[in-house]
């Protein structure tokens, strides 16, 4: 018996980890894609770039604005490709888009997306090494482990509607703004040359508004926008 047991055990666990890995990868893709659109939407809605620079694309059942300026496109693409690398290794806990005034250098608006990974892959491997089925079963449960793509899309759509609507409540930005992308990564992440340590670029005297969240099978994204209160 003992000799017969390990093989099935091992195979089942590796299968599990494999499906999990795939799920994480697929979910990461969804999340990074969301970040891409979120970034574009914020740049458009907050007037970081002129509206002529944007084109409409059908996505999430909405007309999404994406930049058609080559430089901006390339800039965002570079960020997103690195982000997807990190996401697939579940190294990211936050993505932040900070809008900064060019005149004063003050941070005026901060869009923060908190990334929660339901299953920590390192934990997963931990449980496979011990080979403890009970433990792994305990770690498995996620709120709704079988969420259809449609549901995810709907949640994202609702979130984008809210982002668009939030423009009416956010204070006016005075035109000349630029933006930065921050990432909260694990200390042991690989960091390419273009990325460097930074402060949190928090806004002084900020008001925070929590927006909707959405979740995939492996990720949950919470959105918070902070903005400077009027003096």
């Amino acid at each position, binding site marked *: 018996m003992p000799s017969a047991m390990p093989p099935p055990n091992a195979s089942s666990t590796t299968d599990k980890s494999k499906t999990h890995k795939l799920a994480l990868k697929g979910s990461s893709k969804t999340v990074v894609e969301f970040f891409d659109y979120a970034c574009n939407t914020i740049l458009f809605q907050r*007037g*970081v770039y002129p509206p002529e620079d944007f084109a409409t694309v059908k996505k999430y059942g909405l007309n999404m604005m994406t930049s058609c300026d080559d430089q*901006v496109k390339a800039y965002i693409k570079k960020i997103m490709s690195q982000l997807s690398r990190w996401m697939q290794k579940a190294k990211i806990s936050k993505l932040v888009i900070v809008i900064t005034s060019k005149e004063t250098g003050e941070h005026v608006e901060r869009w923060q997306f908190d990334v929660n990974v339901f299953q920590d892959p390192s934990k997963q491997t931990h449980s496979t090494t011990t080979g403890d089925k009970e433990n792994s079963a305990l770690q498995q449960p996620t709120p709704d482990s079988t969420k259809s793509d449609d549901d995810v899309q709907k949640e994202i759509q609702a979130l984008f509607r809210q982002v668009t609507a939030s423009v009416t409540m956010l204070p006016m930005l005075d035109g000349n703004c630029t933006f*930065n992308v*921050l990432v*909260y*990564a694990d200390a*042991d992440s690989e960091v390419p040359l273009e990325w460097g340590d930074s402060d949190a670029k928090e806004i002084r005297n900020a008001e925070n508004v929590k927006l909707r969240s959405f979740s995939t099978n492996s990720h949950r994204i919470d959105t918070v926008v902070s903005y400077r209160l009027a003096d």
Partner: protein
Amino acid sequence: MATLSVATPSKCRDSIFSTRFAGGRAPLASSPKTPRTQVVPQDAGVQTESIHHSNVNLMSCFSRSVSKTNVHLGISDFALTGTGPRPSTAISAKNTPSRPRLGRAGSVHRTPKRTQSKVNYTAADRYIPNRSASEAISTSGAAVKLDNNEQTPGRRPKSSASSDGSAVLAASAASAFDFGRPHSSSNDTTVTLSFEGLNLHERNEDDDEDAPKTKASPNTMAYQQSVAEACGVSIKQRILAYKPAAPESSRPIDLRSQYNRPLKPAAASASQFRRRVLTAPERVLDAPGLVDDYYLNLLDWSSGNQVAIGLERNVYVWSAESGTVASLLECPADTYISSVKWSGDGAYVAAGLGTGEVQIWDVEDGTKLRSMYGHDTRVSVMGWNKHILSTGARSGLVYNHDVRIAQHKIAELVSHTSEVCGLEWRADGSQLATGGNDNLVSIWDARQLNAPKFQKTNHKAAIKALAWCPWQSNLLATGGGSHDRHIHFWNTTSGARVNSIDTGSQVTSLRWSLAYKELVSSSGFPDNSLSIWSYPTLVKNIEIPAHESRVLHSALSPDGQMLATAAADESLKFWKVFEKKAGMANLAGAGGSASTKGLTKANTIR
């Protein structure tokens, strides 16, 4: 255990300390209340103990510490001491290395120990462990990794064996146990000890992570962590920023115009800023026989308020003041008028002919002053700079003529390879801009005419429309033909393109307003309109559907208010597009008369 009784715990000690004394360490600890002399003999007694004995001590202590305090703490404190008749050295050797660990742990239980080690600290500076030493040991493998609490007692003897019995690794719970052992090399032991401490900490802190092999020293780590904790930041996380700066926005954006209805007059001023422009022509004249040729320049308005227009073979002069028309000249039947230009003072008209001949006429007298030959193709564009007349021909050549002298040709400007159809002198006469059918804009320095200062290839069609900004002397606007449809703005000092407009139709002429920061462009196919643009915002203020067919030429009145346009529909229309409010001053000089003023000024300077 006999030592227990010897070391009478002082009153202030808590339970941990009493366990420590149970391990026979009390004398060594040499609390301030314990006489020093007592310490040595006690220590010596322990020194003779075997490893097993120490084990027993450890175990007993261990079990107690488990019950009373947390196990973690007890384990993380390992003291390695050399045995031998030098108790003070042994003590210091053992205590000093443990210090970094203490600093790091920062728990209540350790604090007493630290004070103790300080008390004991006498002679052994050299035993303070350093990182390199501990690393060396770790590679040599002499030290034992302590995996967890339970393994500690079992493993310890092994390490002592490896150090050949001369050095013993002693484990103590909350530094309760110190085993004085005779040792030959105290260095070794210290080093091993410090290594043990390192190992432990790695184990304790990085359970979930696969910790890197080389780590910062415990001190650094401890410091970092305490700082991080104090700041409420997790040391396991980094905030990374994408360092390259985001691309510049092509222009500032006013979100108000996008989302918000203007609430304040300040915001409303944006819409109010749009000036009212009369969209109906002031006057319409017939211009029968106007040649429908984009490349010709047949309309000009003088500083003396007279309009000259070339209609087939005739040049007519219409006086804007009296409204009378007079035929100035008629050219031979085998050719036609290809260009007309008033001199700066408004006294003379230069007329270019299809043959390449250039005639200069005195308007008041109605007499021809001279003919200048040189071009063998039609002269489609001309420009005056004081006494110098520049003529551009179909061949692509531009000649400068000094009209006062017999040998009139003073310069040949070679740059264009196809018909020159646009030519404009800067108001101060220091630069000349030419545009050609070769899609080239050339900017010349008046002092250096052998080659253009800049050649601009951005346009994709012929450039007929050229205009120098009246209030910023190095700003040039150029408009391209039907395949280009753009107006480009140039800094003619640096050669940089500073702005662009896509007008959507062929640009046939450009005129800057003298009073407003605006310029008007006339267009050919498909709009046949006049457009007024604000500069530098490049907002189109208004588009006037001006003619039924393409607008070919335009000319601005000397007061800068009125624009005359001639179109292929053979009409000449006058538009009051830059109507002045009372008391409004021009942006630069005083319109058409400015050129004459500039002339006299320039003359007096020289």
